[in-house]
């Protein structure tokens, strides 16, 4: 029973990590940018919920989706588009700059203290499932993630734009040579990453009941680690990596000696470093380093 309980914990945490990692992985796959400002897309989603607290649920959710998506498109247009030909290092540094800038704007506007938000408090209750007590939030998280992933798979497999994005992820220059519009696929990738980020913010706000200007930071680190484990540049790899990191985290939480449990994330990162010795390119073959035409 305990094992099953842990498994559900692991899958639901893994699901959130997978959504965050997909946001990072998707942008990396089309433009070789590790977007650390993805954490701030999550954060502004959270702050939108905070600002609109008390409004109808649907209004809060739609507004948060919109804010994160518009911010994602905005950072692409303002910060990253002009740097598209720059080196990955330059792109990385500019994503740190964007991340830092947005954090500090929010810091100025809202202060540094975490602030409470009642968002879907009903999900805090646990339901009884054959002797297991499972928090509703976990079940909803798993269900929402599965629906989103099925939607993404269908989008990538079936739509013309999805096909173009897969081509661009594999060989960006060649994709442009067959007529794929660079600006369009990249903007699309950012829009999807914005939607994914706001959904991660829903989980974080529902789970912690609060928002703070740094709320996206640790999630984006985990997302980065997950997408590296999956194989940078592989979209499926990012999702897989997220689930794995979730499962490992929950296992450590459950089976580490009690006095070591607070250091769970340190162990996750240690395992990550060891993993890199074993598979520096991640689990699913990555095309990250393959050069362009």
């Amino acid at each position, binding site marked *: 029973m305990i094992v099953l309980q842990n498994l559900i914990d692991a899958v639901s945490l893994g699901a959130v990590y997978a959504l965050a990692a997909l946001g990072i992985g998707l942008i990396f796959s089309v433009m070789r940018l590790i977007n650390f400002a993805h954490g701030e897309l999550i954060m502004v989603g959270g702050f939108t919920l905070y600002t609109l607290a008390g409004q109808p649920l649907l209004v809060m959710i739609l507004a948060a989706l919109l804010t994160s998506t518009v911010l994602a498109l905005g950072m692409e247009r303002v910060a990253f588009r002009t740097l598209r030909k720059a080196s990955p290092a330059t792109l990385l540094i500019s994503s740190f700059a964007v991340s830092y800038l947005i954090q500090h704007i929010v810091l100025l506007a809202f202060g540094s203290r975490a602030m409470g938000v009642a968002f879907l408090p009903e999900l805090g209750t646990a339901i009884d499932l054959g002797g297991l007590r499972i928090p509703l939030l976990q079940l909803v998280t798993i269900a929402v993630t599965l629906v989103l992933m099925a939607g993404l798979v269908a989008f990538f497999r079936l739509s013309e734009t999805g*096909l*173009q994005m*897969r*081509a661009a992820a*594999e*060989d960006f*220059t*060649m*994709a*442009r*040579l*067959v*007529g*794929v*519009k*660079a600006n369009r696929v990249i903007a699309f990738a950012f829009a999807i990453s914005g939607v994914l980020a706001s959904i991660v913010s829903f989980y974080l706000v529902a789970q912690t009941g609060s928002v703070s200007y740094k709320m996206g930071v640790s999630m984006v680190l985990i997302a980065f680690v997950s997408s590296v484990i999956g194989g940078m540049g592989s979209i499926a790899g990012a999702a897989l990596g997220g689930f794995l990191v979730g499962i490992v985290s929950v296992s450590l939480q459950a089976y580490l000696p009690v006095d070591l449990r607070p250091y769970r994330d340190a162990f996750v990162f240690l395992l990550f470093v060891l993993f890199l010795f074993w598979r520096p390119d991640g689990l699913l073959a990555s*095309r990250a380093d393959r050069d362009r*035409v």
Partner: protein
Amino acid sequence: MLKIRDLHVSYGNIAALRGISLDVGKSEIVAVIGPNGAGKSTLLLAIAGVVRARAGSVEFDGRAITGQQPEALVTTGLSLVPEGRHIFGSLSVAENLRLGATVRRDRQEVARDIDRVLAMFPILRERYRQRANKLSGGEQQMLAIGRAMLARPRLLLLDEPSLGLAPLIVAQIYEAVRALRDQGVTALIVEQNVGRALSAADRTYVLSSGVIAMSGKSAEFAGNAAFDAAYFGVAEAAR
């Protein structure tokens, strides 16, 4: 149809093209030959908009296209089959071909064109649902050419279509080039395989260290002492 004047391209401070002028007429097949590092690929990449020209002009059908983006140039009727083929290995043969038609809206005609490509390269029909990285080198080259054809280009740019392929496959590829030419497609082909280039092309340019060393009708090249000197001379010097 294609008119290049005094084209200069550099990578950093390495000058790859140093003042190239070249013309391709409608329905003509023109070859560019030259040793490794001569700048042949750079020439095609500059025409297709992948690399920027430092100076000079490229005109396509009388319109200046210098500095345009690759995705915009495909819509004007110009398709590049790059060196090394660059097929989308993780996608199926079918998806690669569909991507070739990205710039088109006439779905039914696209379906018919895919059929034509499959008729031209029957092996691709057998492999239609397979991932493209499972194909042999020759099959990948056929796919790359088929993918380019699906944009319905008026000018096809081919970079070393025979590279690394068995003679039988090379013959098949050039058979296809000839068939395309009969359909009125104009082609600019870069080759290291001099024999192939001379027999396929109406006219040939010899490129060496970023400049045109010689040009003329292909038929007059074979066995021509000046050509041997220009081509093999530069080839020797490049070693």
